[in-house]
């Protein structure tokens, strides 16, 4: 019998990316030299990658001014098919440079190259293609015969899908004729800044897209700026609430895509092996740092043992390590702060009485790592069942009947996504009707497409990204 089969390292070429020592601020089509910079790192090794310009309120002012000028001086008035042309260009350049972008995304964010290569990049390009197609068809989108853009959009995006979130935000905004000031997350600015290079390369008029890296204070400055007509925020519910309070009474438009605590519901007639794949993809995709992650597994009690055994067996085959290795399934946690939060909540699960399990797994010495973790015996009252962990931690709860499944699934302040696993088509439809979640996946999980609207109920936010509905967030309707 062979001793075993160790896969040799298969790293994607890091030198596909030519990192600059220093990245500036992209304002009005130019790169401004920042007064202050900060270091952005590779979370899998804690090695520094580059110095990134830290915006100040002064640059926020300049960027909003540039966006306003671009909006007033033509962008909103040029022919829609012309706008589409720019978006198609961006999409194509993204595709051409997708290997480079995938490496950069994995370097700066810690996610496995398999995911950035197969999910983040194709979807980012697809969003630009999709909304490029809408640009000259807005009159047929169901918002009246001649829907108008809103104006200057301030867009603040998270660190879990840095490039994809930029695409989700920029593509519909530009297609509808708005101009934008985008702030990537503090820990993951690089792909958004290189996207700015692409936008310049695509000859998008100066000021239509402005990109400012920086911390929360810059986000706040954008939100509070008088020249901004609309805020689109994707991030934590906590910050979303602050933004909503800030904007109350100002007349600025707002769309929020916030946290989640999705139930992934597995019935006893589900295709079990595929359900296991769906659970794995639901909570360990991007190390669970996904707002719509299937963090609560609701399994019918009659198959709990069978399913959990199968899940554990599968988790033992996950390969954790170097994000740039093509065979890596689980990468690094995005930052020290996030790792601390995952640890704290996981410890609370144990303290409250849940049973903790992880596959045998060696963690690298340096960088931010957390082993995939499953909690069984979880009750609805535990923090790990109520609070968003945003990490590779699954809480397992059981139910007996479809009614109980609905009751438990909806028993959360969130309502972003849910999953249903069953062979019965009629049950899928009835569950989807009764689940209070913006997205319900049937016999799959974490599947995205630019044509499908995405967004939440309750504390998961409002407004939709993607599809025809996504246009509504950037039109004056």
């Amino acid at each position, binding site marked *: 019998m062979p001793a075993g089969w160790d*896969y040799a390292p*298969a790293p994607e070429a890091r030198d596909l990316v030519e990192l600059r020592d220093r990245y500036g601020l992209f304002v009005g089509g130019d790169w401004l030299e920042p007064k202050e910079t900060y270091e952005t790192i590779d979370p899998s090794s804690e090695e520094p990658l580059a110095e990134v310009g830290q915006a100040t309120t002064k640059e926020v002012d300049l960027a909003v001014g540039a966006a306003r000028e671009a909006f007033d001086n033509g962008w909103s008035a040029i022919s829609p098919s012309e706008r589409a042309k720019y978006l198609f260009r961006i999409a194509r350049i993204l595709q051409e440079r997708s290997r480079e972008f995938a490496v950069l995304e994995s370097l700066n964010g810690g996610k496995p190259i398999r995911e950035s290569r197969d999910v983040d990049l194709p979807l980012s390009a697809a969003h630009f293609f999709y909304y490029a197609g809408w640009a000259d068809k807005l009159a047929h989108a169901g918002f009246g015969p001649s829907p108008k853009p809103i104006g200057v959009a301030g867009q603040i995006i998270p660190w879990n899908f840095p490039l994809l979130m930029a695409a989700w935000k920029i593509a519909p905004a530009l297609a509808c004729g708005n101009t934008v000031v985008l702030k990537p997350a503090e820990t993951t600015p690089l792909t958004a800044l290189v996207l700015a290079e692409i936008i310049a390369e695509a000859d998008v008029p100066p000021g239509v897209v402005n990109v400012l890296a920086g911390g929360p204070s810059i986000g706040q400055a954008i939100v509070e700026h008088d020249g901004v007509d609309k805020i689109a925020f994707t991030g934590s519910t906590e910050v979303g609430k602050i933004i909503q309070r800030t904007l109350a009474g100002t007349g600025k438009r707002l769309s929020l895509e916030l946290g989640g605590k999705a139930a992934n519901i597995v019935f006893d007639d589900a295709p079990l092996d595929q359900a296991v794949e769906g659970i794995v993809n639901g909570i360990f995709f991007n190390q669970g740092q996904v707002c719509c992650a299937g963090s609560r597994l609701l399994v019918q009690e009659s198959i709990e043992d069978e399913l959990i055994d199968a899940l554990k067996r599968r988790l033992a085959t996950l390969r954790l390590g170097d994000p740039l290795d*093509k065979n890596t399934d689980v990468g690094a946690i995005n930052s020290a702060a996030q790792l601390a939060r995952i640890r704290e909540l996981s410890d609370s699960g144990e303290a409250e009485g849940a049973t903790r399990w992880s596959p045998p797994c060696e963690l690298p010495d340096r960088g931010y790592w957390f082993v995939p973790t499953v909690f069984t015996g979880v009750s609805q009252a535990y923090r790990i069942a109520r609070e968003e962990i945003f990490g590779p931690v699954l809480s397992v709860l059981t139910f007996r009947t479809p009614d109980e499944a609905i009751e438990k699934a909806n028993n959360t302040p969130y309502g972003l996504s849910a999953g249903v696993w069953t062979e019965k088509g009629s049950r899928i439809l009835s569950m989807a009707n009764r689940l209070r979640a913006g997205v319900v996946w049937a016999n799959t999980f974490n599947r995205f497409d630019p044509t499908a609207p995405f967004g939440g109920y309750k504390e998961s936010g409002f407004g939709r990204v993607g599809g025809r509905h996504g246009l509504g967030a950037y039109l004056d309707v």
Partner: protein
Amino acid sequence: MAKAPVLATGFELPLEPRLPRIGSVDAVAVEERAATLAKRSIKREAKLFALDLAVRMIDLTTLEGADTPGKVAALSSKAIRPDPSDLTVPSVAAVCVYPNLVPTAVERVRGTSVKVASVATAFPSGQAPTHLKVEEVRDVVEMGADEVDMVIDRGAFLSGRYAKVYDEIVQVKEAAGKAHLKVILEVGELGTYDNVRRASLLAIAGGADFIKTSTGKIPSSCTLPVTLVMLEAIRDVYDETGRRVGMKGAGGIRQAKQAVQYLVQLHETLGPEWLTPDLYRLGASTLLNDVLMQIRKEKTGRYQSPDYFTVD
């Protein structure tokens, strides 16, 4: 003669030992999982390990109306020594031939590790009376076949007569005696992954030592999602009963790269214990030379012309 137990509900029998539940398979999701596994990047020594293993797992096959003793003799030599210019390349697992060619193959591989497998039971259609199939199996075993590759009666399976399928496998298993029994499901005719799983469990319940995808005689044959479904059935039987059943993929595996993908899937579904010719086979004719070419490329760093690999 073996007597099939009464099948009360479908074929979810025999009750002892218990079999895993039949359950269901979601086509979209199983194809996605198979596609993900196929993206594993296997390099250098890991690749060489896989290629060497692939050679040892090959059932070198010729199943043509035009097969002659001369053809089978040549094939047997190739099976014993696949690459005469590199003696570190191992022999393949077996040669797989029609019943009439079994004596030739037996004579040619005598004294080596290479086994002789014979197709039987009215291969490839299986559309013949059971007693003739059983007799055919007895004959090939008598002629010296170490392994018997039978086909299931798809006509019976697709018309819901699972008991007939089961009963036939039980009888063939008995007739095969010590010879290893591989049961061909002919997945391309089964239509759904659900049927593939059902047929896999049925064959295992009937006594199959191996389950095998295809005859290679119809265009649609072995695919990664199909073998994944079959491996999962094997795994579930092992979990439930402790019995290790083997797997043979056949039909359509022509390139070394595909062989590596099948082995990755095996490795990550059934684990390292199954990485042996005793439990996994690749039925193929043209695959071998591509694997040999890749082995030499890994060892020397360059590709050589196909003229440097023997054609038998």
